[in-house]
């Protein structure tokens, strides 16, 4: 069942909406520029954005996120700006994923090495008795790597407050077994949630977060993403409806958020890539195609 946000968290939900808008604007703009021949960083947003944004929304400010570096919504939900992404894409700044102040770190190799590292971060927090959890995101293919099994094993043995979020795109599963089934082998908790539903993922990650805070250790979550549904169920629409139903959002708000994002990316492009700035304006309109996790595309 999809969980709905506590009203006290509506401001955070609004920030999630703003983050998703920025991810959409960037993705849309990058697609335009790539059609014109630009070589830009890989990213995975549309299709997995509900799962990633829902997971990031459920975390506390002190929690960490280690990902594969392609998951666009996460840094935006943690305060990254479009300007940082544009600067990085055009070689003017480091990857905004890797920001200590935001407690986010990307694994550029996408081979699962970040899974054990995430456990180490969580383990360190536990040793220092800090109420910190670590979200480790990866796509389905990673569960076949030794790094995944090392990480889940160490987390289980030492009850590290880690939340493993496996994004399984149903049409491209690595095997028939569910990733969450591996949890039993390592004696840790697991859950499966609807990866197309922001609130379902937020709810599952929130539960895992509570478990971690209680000293019960890690959880292996599997967000199952149905490509056909992901193309129809727009996470932005879902968030907007929720906010509107609470009187926290209106058409004017929507227009302002999109306008801010469009201005921000236009300004950034004019600063870091003046040639690219002259091309068409970015859009947040849903597209028919799904962008699956980059590792899948590469394979």
């Amino acid at each position, binding site marked *: 069942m999809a969980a709905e946000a506590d009203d006290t968290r509506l401001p955070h939900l609004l920030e999630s909406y703003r983050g998703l808008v920025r991810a959409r604007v960037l993705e849309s703009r990058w697609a335009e520029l790539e059609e014109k021949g630009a070589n830009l960083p890989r990213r995975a947003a549309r299709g997995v954005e509900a799962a990633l944004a829902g997971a990031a929304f459920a975390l506390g400010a002190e929690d960490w996120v280690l990902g594969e570096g392609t998951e666009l919504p996460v840094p935006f939900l943690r305060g990254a700006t479009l300007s940082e992404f544009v600067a990085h894409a055009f070689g003017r700044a480091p990857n905004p994923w890797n920001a*200590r102040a935001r407690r986010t770190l990307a694994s550029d190799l996408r081979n699962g090495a970040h899974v*054990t*590292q995430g456990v*180490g971060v969580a383990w*360190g927090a536990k040793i220092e008795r800090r109420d910190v959890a670590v979200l480790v995101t990866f796509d389905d293919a990673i569960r076949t790597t030794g790094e995944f099994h090392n990480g889940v094993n160490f987390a289980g043995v030492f009850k590290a407050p880690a939340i493993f979020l496996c994004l399984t795109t149903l049409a491209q599963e690595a095997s028939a077994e569910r990733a969450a089934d591996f949890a039993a082998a390592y004696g840790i908790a697991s859950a499966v949630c609807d990866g197309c539903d922001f609130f379902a993922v937020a709810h599952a990650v929130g539960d895992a977060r509570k478990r971690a805070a209680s000293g019960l250790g890690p959880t292996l979550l599997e967000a199952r993403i149905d490509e056909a549904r992901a193309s129809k169920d727009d996470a932005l629409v879902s968030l907007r409806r929720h906010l509107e139903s609470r009187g926290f959002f209106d058409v004017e708000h929507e227009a302002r958020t999109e306008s801010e994002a469009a201005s921000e990316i236009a300004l950034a492009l004019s600063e870091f890539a003046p040639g690219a700035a002259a091309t068409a304006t970015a859009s947040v309109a849903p597209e028919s195609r799904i962008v699956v996790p980059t590792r899948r595309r590469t394979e």
Partner: protein
Amino acid sequence: MATQNMVQAINDGLRHEMQRDPRVVVLGEDVGKVGGVFRVTQGLYDEFGDERVIDTPLSEGGIIGCAIGMALYGLVPIPEIQFSDFIFPAYDQIVSELAKMRYRSGGEYAAKLVIRTPVGGGIRGGLYHSQSPESLFIHVAGLKVVCPSTPEDAKGLLLASIRDPDPVLFFEPKRIYRAAKGEVPEGEHLVELGKARIVREATRSSGATGSGAQVTVIAWGAMVYEAIAAAEEAEKQGVSCEILDLRTLWPVDIDAIVTSVKKTGRVVIVHEAPKTCGFGAELVALINEKAFLHLEAPPVRVTGFDTPFPYTLENDYLPLAHRILPAVLETAKF
């Protein structure tokens, strides 16, 4: 100062740092209750508890991956790899992740940790408990590589490694874990990384019967003692050796090497690892680049062979004094 062997000195250094800095944690296979297979961490578990002296599952990749994560969080982990032969399952984490963390994150993250691991032959451990893989790590930008030869240096270099802002591979020559003994300063004792030690200076007045030639012998770890033994014999034959113990293999103290080579004009490099692409090859290249016109003879390498490390022929494989001496004498008379 107390007289300690290398095991005791490293143990003393670990204890000192764990008492000084609560962020320091030790983790690895059997490092806790057992105190490590060589007992280097003995007693630390009782003193600091199981959250700071941690017995891990048997997975080098997991140990190093988790240690990197701990370092990212802000701890100062000191993972132990039980034998350097076992480090390869963690090679990707060390080379692709640890060594590049500061660079690829634009300085946002630095993984500050020290990987301790016994290295080299001398205990009849055969091919999987005797290797010397230092050059595989020296080749990787972003790593520092240390290999002490004395208890005093072991403690001092370990403390300096722990306080260094970047990752350090700390190779401990197991052949001399208990054989090397000496006075070790109590408490605070640091030896600067990147500085070689002149173990023995060459003199012009060597040997009543010899030519008076001088030879620089470069070694590290357990082979320093073999170099000393060869030098003592060479002295009797009229050849004076200047022995450099590199201590820190990378960044290497090239100034000390060049100074010595300019003085002697001859150089013999000794290491346990196979010859091909061993660190000796890089040292020869550096010497050629920086002191070529001062050489009186071609640089010579006395090393392990390009074979797996043998069980029964260990003393033939290792570049012991009986193999170093002829190389020194040949170089002297070139």
